């Protein structure tokens, strides 16, 4: 049974190897069969394991952690413990949730890509990377120690780079890939330091040992070391999950093909940070100050990104900022101590956000590559399936009741106010953000699918609904976007929390005991729900008014508040600021100091060419002795003889 877990990981790896090495010779059908087959097998195994778990609520201990082989073992010396990192996989309810979500979404996206990438070059390469990504992501979520998790972490980063820069001949795409990798690297530094500090403090990096030791610590005491560890780990999450200030790579990552945006930058890779924080809940529970940082950054990011999304005209970019914003929500959930809410939102978000991206891809496909929403409009007649699936996802993300997003978002908002580390300002800002979310999402919907068609002439007659290869996954995702909220019926708001109780239970209790929350009781849960519903309703109404009823108004508002509008459209100039502060100085240093100064001057000039030049001059001098003139030879012999004679007679 313990091998079933491994079996979830292996097929994508094999698929990636097969397509990567041999794929060039396969035709498209074979490539997609291998890749989708691998993803499908993984999904089946994950679902099998999930089903088995429902019948065996307490898994045997060697399923919880099973070590397959010793990967790294360094015997300790001079006071340091042994460093042991095995290839060991960890299985609990959290892993179950993650593996099921990841494999289902990945499988659907693999199916969608068959249609989407059919006319692009590099078909086999795309699927090889996609499978490799799936393997890495599964490694990340099933790893039993931080080292193996980091392998998966880096692996998904690599695949993200490869896939964002998939159209590597296009400069903006390869630049975006580099940007993603470098920016997440900054976070990875924090992650690595966190792991090192963890090992230095506790002598191990595997979850069971570390969590066991940390649980033994007295409650409520926020040790400085533990806070440092948690903050460093969170820094890794900030990079990977695109929070303030390391979010800048995600909008640029839209250069990649749309399935990539859906899989990596909506459903899975960017949620790795949230997963990591949730997995480390034991550590974070003993470091409340770190948790406060998590929730603060999450909330600020959510609001910040939502304000930018309001003014974006590129459909995918708007969705990218929306992802950043929703990830912020997940961190708020974890940060106020309701980890289950964060994971719940992760799960529902995976479904509706990937659906949004895939639908956007369908729109792009139908409009021959157009993504500017100002050149869309009225598409719901020409692309009905895409439209209603997009509508379902938009309703879900806006927190409209009965859809999954409502349940998960509501849990987070309730937690922001009533949770152990909840604070009122978190709740109000998050609710405002929810209103903004509803607004910009419906703005997107209306601009793209409703109203009058602003599509360019030559594109207009090509507009077509996408093939069933692409629309079928859309429909499945739409179904999931609705029902995912009902896990654990009949308590939709509580269901997942109950399921994840074994994972988060102790942390929850700890946090509740330590800090009961500032505003408990001031506003009941019903009132909170009312506010968030009102925010969503206002957002939707505003979008309807501004983009359907009186579409000339946004233009007038933009003209009137030109400064603010420019600020938002130009994304607060953050990219420009980073460029000025970090990128340009590094370029100048690289160019002037390191390249011209050091490489050209010192190494090439002095060491290589200089030595050669010096050798030549000395050689030139010595060359004159070889004049070919016998008489001078004779003279030199004489001189040498005299010198030696003198030495022998007078010096010795």
């Amino acid at each position, binding site marked *: 049974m313990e091998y079933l877990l491994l079996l979830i990981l292996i097929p994508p790896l094999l698929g990636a190897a097969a397509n990567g090495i041999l794929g060039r010779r396969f035709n498209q059908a074979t490539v997609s069969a291998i890749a989708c087959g691998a993803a499908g097998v993984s999904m089946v195994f994950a679902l099998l394991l999930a089903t088995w778990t429902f019948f065996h609520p307490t898994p045997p201990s060697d399923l919880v952690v099973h070590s397959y082989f010793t990967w790294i073992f360094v015997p300790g010396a001079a006071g340091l413990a042994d460093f042991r990192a095995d290839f060991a996989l960890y299985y609990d309810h959290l892993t179950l949730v993650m593996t099921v979500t990841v494999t289902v979404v990945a499988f659907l996206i693999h199916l969608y890509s068959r249609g989407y990438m059919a006319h692009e070059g590099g078909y086999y390469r795309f699927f090889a990377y996609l499978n490799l990504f799936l393997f890495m992501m599964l490694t990340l979520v099933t790893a039993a120690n931080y080292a193996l998790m980091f392998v998966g972490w880096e692996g998904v980063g690599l695949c993200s780079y490869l896939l964002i820069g998939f159209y590597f001949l296009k400069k903006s795409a390869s630049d975006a890939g580099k940007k993603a990798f470098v920016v997440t690297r900054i976070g990875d530094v924090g992650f690595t330091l966190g792991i090192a500090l963890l090992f230095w403090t506790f002598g191990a990096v595997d979850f069971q040992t570390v969590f066991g030791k940390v649980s033994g610590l007295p409650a409520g005491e926020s040790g400085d070391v533990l806070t440092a560890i948690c903050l460093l780990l969170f820094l890794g999450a900030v990079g990977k999950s695109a929070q303030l200030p390391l979010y800048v790579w995600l909008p640029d990552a839209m250069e990649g093909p749309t399935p990539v945006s859906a899989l990596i930058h909506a459903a899975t890779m960017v949620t790795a940070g949230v997963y990591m924080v949730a997995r480390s809940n034991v550590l974070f529970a003993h470091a409340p100050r770190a948790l406060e940082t998590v929730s603060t950054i999450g909330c600020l990011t959510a609001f910040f990104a939502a304000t930018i999304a309001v003014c974006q005209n590129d459909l995918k970019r708007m969705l990218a900022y929306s992802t950043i914003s929703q990830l912020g929500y997940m961190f708020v959930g974890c940060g106020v101590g309701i980890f289950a809410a964060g994971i719940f939102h992760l799960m529902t978000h995976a479904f509706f956000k990937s659906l949004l991206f895939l639908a956007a891809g369908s729109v792009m496909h139908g409009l021959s590559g157009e993504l500017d929403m100002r050149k869309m409009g009225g598409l719901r007649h020409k692309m009905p399936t895409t439209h209603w699936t997009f509508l379902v996802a938009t309703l879900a993300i806006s927190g409209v009741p009965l859809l999954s997003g409502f349940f998960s978002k509501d849990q987070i908002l309730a937690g922001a106010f009533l949770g152990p580390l909840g604070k009122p300002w978190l709740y109000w800002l998050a609710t405002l953000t929810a209103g903004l979310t509803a607004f910009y999402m419906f703005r997107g919907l209306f601009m793209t699918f409703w109203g009058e068609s602003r599509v360019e002439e030559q594109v207009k007659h090509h507009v077509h609904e996408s093939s069933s290869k692409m629309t079928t996954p859309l429909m499945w995702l739409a179904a999931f976007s609705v029902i995912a909220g009902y896990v654990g019926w009949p308590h939709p708001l509580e269901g997942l929390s109950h399921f994840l109780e074994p994972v988060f239970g102790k942390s929850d209790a700890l946090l509740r005991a330590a800090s009961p929350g500032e505003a408990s009781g001031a506003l009941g849960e019903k009132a909170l729900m009312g506010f968030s519903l009102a925010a969503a309703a206002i957002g939707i109404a505003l979008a309807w008014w501004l983009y359907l009823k009186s579409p000339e108004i946004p233009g007038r508002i933009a003209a009137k508040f030109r400064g603010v509008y420019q600020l938002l459209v130009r994304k607060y100039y953050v990219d420009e600021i980073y460029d000025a502060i970090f990128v340009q100085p590094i370029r100048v240093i690289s160019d002037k100091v390191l390249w011209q100064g050091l490489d050209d001057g010192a190494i090439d000039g002095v060491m290589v060419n200089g030595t050669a030049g010096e050798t030549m001059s000395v050689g030139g001098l010595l060359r004159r002795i*070889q004049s*070919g*003139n*016998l*008489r001078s030879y*004779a*003279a030199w012999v004489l001189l040498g003889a005299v010198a030696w004679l003198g030495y022998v007679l007078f010096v010795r």
Partner: protein
Amino acid sequence: MVPLSHVLALSMILFVLGIAGFIFRRNVITIFMCIELMLNAVNLAFIGFARQLGQLDGQLYVFFVIVVAAAEAAVGLAIIIALYRNRESLSIDDLDSMRN
């Protein structure tokens, strides 16, 4: 009896003359003659010491030197003739194909 110092002085003078001629003269045959001069100067020194010490070793050495000088002269002159046939010149400055 001629004092040893006179013999050695003459020997030294002859030797230095030989060196000077070797370095400063241009004609190849003249240079050869100077080489012979140097060898004979050394012979003289040997004889002088042999007489002074009353031993025959020095005289024996002279024989060796004479033999070697003769052989060397023969070979050297043969080389000079070969060189002359190729280069039409007896000036040592013209023998510079090993230049650089």
